[in-house]
């Protein structure tokens, strides 16, 4: 229709004239609306003398120069401690329950005289992998997510962003990135989704690409076990305190790398003017615990668990198959690890470790089980009873303190798990960024491990 075109054209040119007259139409519009909002509010609201409100008092402590940062670190530490120590027992119970059921499944398969390979693929591969992922992942997430949601609903998290924004500004990133990182401690996929709170695309991408540098719940067990192994080899004495300090140090290193990579990104591929930073510090509100529990368990915990289960199931089948098909007395896993041995040695690891990380792509939780399984050359994943037994096994397979340390670093820095990558693909709508999200951390991991390994060898430390 001609009239639409002509009409719009005419109106727009008229409108343009007014815009030139008034200067900023937008300013006049917003000002008028706000003034009327103010006028109405003054008519209907009467406030008795506002006392020095509680929020201010809380904020005086929470954002104070002296207490602000220590309080943040203490709270983070508390959340970790509650998560890790609280998850131990339920994880054990869940594992006993699920692995107990495995025996029944085995009995059932024998009873219907199913072929051995079918039992292997379905029970020893698929079911066992699932059981492992659920028992390792569910309890910590069921504790971490409600705690996190609590801090979120309380209104504390924006204060964290407020305290730390300057650090992120220097790195060319957004203060809210710290919140997405906190979420990443629970699950990097959830952390990537949380990046939506960052409005500007550039800063959001930086946050998405670096979220992996904070270790998620799936990697914490690995870090803790490896810290114990490392210290066991180095000082041959178990110390929970030292191990905790080491894990804390690893987390700090992750944050440092996040800032460094963010800075590099903002100076290279994601160059651009920093966008506006506006952050509301909402009033504190005591959350309703019941609703909070339901929401955090339904929306976050089960959501993340379901996704992990979806990738873990096929992974179990593949791993079992690779470990059980033997060619000339060596399993496929053995061959693959052999190929990777040279590269592994170069960065202070070995072929089996690299393979475990690659096969562990579906979920970081299964890296250690795969490794143990490979070393024991058995077709199934199993749990060793103690860290001591694990250490003996690893030393028998040629591990040194360097291997343990590099295992920790590689676990912290390597490519994100498949679930996280899929989430990044969905959030960025781009294959290119998804590849970068895998390549950047992997490069960092390889470089760091390589440098450490070569330095240690040159200095004759191993």
């Amino acid at each position, binding site marked *: 229709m001609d009239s*639409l075109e002509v009409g*719009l054209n005419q109106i*727009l040119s008229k409108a343009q004239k*007014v815009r030139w007259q008034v200067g900023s139409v937008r300013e006049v*519009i917003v000002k008028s609306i*706000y003034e009327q909002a103010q006028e109405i509010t003054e*008519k209907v609201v009467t*406030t008795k003398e506002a006392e020095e409100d509680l929020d201010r008092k809380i904020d005086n402590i929470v954002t104070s120069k002296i207490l602000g940062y220590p309080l943040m670190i203490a709270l983070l530490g508390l959340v970790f401690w509650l998560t890790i120590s609280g998850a131990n027992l339920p994880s054990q119970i869940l594992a006993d329950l699920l692995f107990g059921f495995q025996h029944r499944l085995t009995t059932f398969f024998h009873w219907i005289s199913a072929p051995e390979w079918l039992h292997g693929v379905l029970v020893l591969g698929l079911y066992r992998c699932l059981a492992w992922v659920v028992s390792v992942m569910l309890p910590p997430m069921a504790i971490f997510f409600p705690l996190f949601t609590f801090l979120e609903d309380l209104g504390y998290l924006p204060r964290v962003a407020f305290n730390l924004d300057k650090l992120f500004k220097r790195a060319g990133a957004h203060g809210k990135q710290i919140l997405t990182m906190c979420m990443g401690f629970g699950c990097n996929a959830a952390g990537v989704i949380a990046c939506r709170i960052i409005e500007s695309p550039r800063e959001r991408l930086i946050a998405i690409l670096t979220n992996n540098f904070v270790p998620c719940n799936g990697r914490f067990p690995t870090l803790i076990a490896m810290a114990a192994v490392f210290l066991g080899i180095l000082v041959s004495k178990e110390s929970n305190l030292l191990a905790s300090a080491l894990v804390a140090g690893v987390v700090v290193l992750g944050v440092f790398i996040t800032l460094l990579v963010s800075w590099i990104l903002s100076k290279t591929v994601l160059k651009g003017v920093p966008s506006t930073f506006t952050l509301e510090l909402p009033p504190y509100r005591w959350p309703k615990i019941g609703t909070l529990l339901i929401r955090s368990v339904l929306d976050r915990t089960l959501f993340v668990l379901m996704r992990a289960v979806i990738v873990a199931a096929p992974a179990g089948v593949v791993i079992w198959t690779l470990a059980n098909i033997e060619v000339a007395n060596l399993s496929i896993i053995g061959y693959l690890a052999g190929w990777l041995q040279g590269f592994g040695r170069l960065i202070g690891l070995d072929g089996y470790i690299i393979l475990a990380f690659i096969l562990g792509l579906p979920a970081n939780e299964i890296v250690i089980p795969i490794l143990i399984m490979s070393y024991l050359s058995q077709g199934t994943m199993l749990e060793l009873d103690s860290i001591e037994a694990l250490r003996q096994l690893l030393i028998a397979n040629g591990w040194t303190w360097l291997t343990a340390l590099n295992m920790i670093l590689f676990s912290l820095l390597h490519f994100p798990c498949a679930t996280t990558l899929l989430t990044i693909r969905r959030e960025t709508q781009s294959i290119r960024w998804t590849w970068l999200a895998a390549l950047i951390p992997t490069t960092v991991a390889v470089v760091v491990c390589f440098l450490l390994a070569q330095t240690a060898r040159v200095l004759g430390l191993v």
Partner: protein
Amino acid sequence: MQVTGLQEFLERIEENKGDAVIALAGNPNTGKSTVFNSLTGLNQHTGNWPGKTVVFAKGSYRYKKKNITLVDLPGAYSLLANSADEQVARDFICFGKPDATVVVVDATCLERNLNLALQVMEITPQTILCVNLIDEAKRKKMAIDFSKLADLLGVPVIPTVARDKVGLLDLKESIHRVVFEKQLLQPRRIVYNKVIESAIEKIQEEVEVLVHGSLNSRWVALRLLDGDPTIIREIFNHLQRMDPGDQQSKRALKVVEDCG
């Protein structure tokens, strides 16, 4: 083109919309989601706004034999659309034609929140103000005259404490009245300064001819004056949707974009 996301979403809403579609708008941190959760319970699902990384939640409830679909819009300070969230909220209220829009406001921060409410009322008369967190206001020793507020705004005002489920029945009743009993609402109109008002007057008639009552002509005139390219493109797409198969208007779109 940006409009496809909106269209796709509207079609999805249309599929099983029940007897009425209600939009839920509000600033961030007003307890809007609590209102949404309390009204719909577990009858909800969340998803992505097509083509954008903006989440929306859709839920439903039943009241007086009517099935109500509730769309929880992303939190926004304003509808002038400076972020993807705000754009989605604006597009849905404006082009999604919900049967009514409930604006959830924080009782302790009325002035800031009324900014959004007034903007919603500018687009659609079918607006209900839900003043949430009145317990917090009491704690802060603030007294609010709700009936006076309703008089001044010309729309229903419902005080609530959503987390304790206080006032939600009143809210459902108010929605019912506005949607099904055709309660007449005469929302307060924002008056601008002389220059703007006379400019509106100059172009409003022509706008009216163009939009055929499918959009509020005063509001469209204001957006044209403001010269915001995203809304102008969206308005144009909307007009085209009203009148499909129209090739020449595509050229007009180019004109619009050049102006933006």
